[in-house]
């Protein structure tokens, strides 16, 4: 795999900014596969519910989100809803020209080794998930699919990919603390679904705080950088955005503000 990567910590931003920037970097890489791959870490302010590219908006209690000041944004990637609050999000933009295979499973398996190495730095041993569920909940974290990562059988990192030509975008959430009660308020569940999701959250998922106590995002950031550097032998360059990425970002923000 290519060794020279760009690294960005873009801090706290709105969900619209974050998703627009992921797409701007992804789009630029698709048109310019020769530029180095990028690893970005970021946080969300205000808290935000990101929903899957094709998820039905009827599954989301948008009125409650508004009341609580929680943004709702549609991701470029698939899957179902994720609450971004107490966490750090990562995104990787890379091209098949950089030495990543075409297969979704094999590319996840390679990139996730960096995440496994990062969590080792935090003292948390995690594993790839190989089984696949077929009935998907509107809440992403209670679904476990190929290439998610687990801690003692419970999902700890969920990631998703988008493909555009040779370019791959993979992003995912490194959860410090789940808030299942808040999450339940933001989705349009009936009572039976609500009960099942509450049970699923406690049985099927786990977060860093439960495993290792108080954890701050800076520790996770440091672990991610070191994990990727050491496992893949990367050399990160702290980087600014390319001019075209900035232009793309500005164009895309208004698109992400429109929730359709």
């Amino acid at each position, binding site marked *: 795999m290519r060794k020279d990567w760009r690294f960005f910590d873009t801090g706290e931003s709105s969900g619209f900014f974050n998703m627009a920037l992921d797409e701007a970097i992804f789009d630029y890489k698709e048109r310019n596969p020769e530029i180095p791959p990028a690893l970005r870490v970021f946080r969300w302010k205000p808290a935000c519910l990101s929903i899957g590219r*094709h998820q039905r908006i009827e599954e989301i209690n948008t009125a409650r989100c508004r009341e609580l000041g929680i943004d709702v944004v549609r991701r*470029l990637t*698939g899957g179902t809803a994720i609450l971004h609050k107490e966490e750090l999000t990562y995104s990787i933009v890379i091209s098949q020209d950089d030495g990543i295979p075409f297969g979704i499973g094999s590319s996840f398996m390679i990139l996730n080794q960096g995440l496994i190495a990062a969590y080792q730095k935090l003292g948390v041993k995690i594993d790839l998930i190989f089984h696949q569920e077929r009935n998907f909940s509107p809440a992403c974290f209670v679904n476990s699919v190929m290439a998610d990562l687990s801690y003692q059988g419970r999902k700890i990192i969920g990631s998703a*990919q988008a*493909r*555009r030509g040779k370019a791959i975008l993979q992003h995912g959430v490194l959860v410090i603390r789940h808030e299942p009660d808040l999450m339940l308020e933001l989705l349009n569940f009936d009572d039976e679904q609500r009960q099942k999701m509450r049970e699923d959250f406690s049985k099927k998922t786990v977060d860093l705080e439960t495993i290792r106590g108080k954890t701050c995002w800076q520790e996770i950031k440091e672990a991610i950088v070191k994990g990727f550097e050491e496992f893949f032998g990367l050399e990160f360059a702290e980087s600014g955005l390319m001019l075209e990425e900035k232009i793309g970002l500005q164009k895309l923000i208004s698109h992400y503000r429109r929730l359709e």
Partner: protein
Amino acid sequence: MYPENLRYTKTHEWIKTEGGILTLGITFYAQEHIGEIVFAGLPAVGAPVKKGARLMDIESTKAVAEIFSPCDGKIAAVNDALLDQDNLLAVNKDPYGDGWLVKIETENPDISTLMDATSYEGFIKSGGGPS
């Protein structure tokens, strides 16, 4: 696995031409690597399409893959059956038959520059990434 009567793109779509209509789907190789399809984001019938521009996307359990148009034209038909979740597996199980995606009406239906089955098989054996 790769029918002789079809042509193939480097981004793993198959194309068939009948008169001025191109039919497009994804190849066996593509479906195998993308995984089980859970949603097809089909374009609207009548929508104009541009060669090289995004045409539609398909979502598997872990990835969304975008599909690009091989020609200028407009959407003549889409595989409506795929709007029913139960039928989506056709894209995996029968990619050249019930799993077709769209038909495009075009004034330039020449697909002779695309790969034939033998060339496509050679292409995927040599690495298979788009170039």
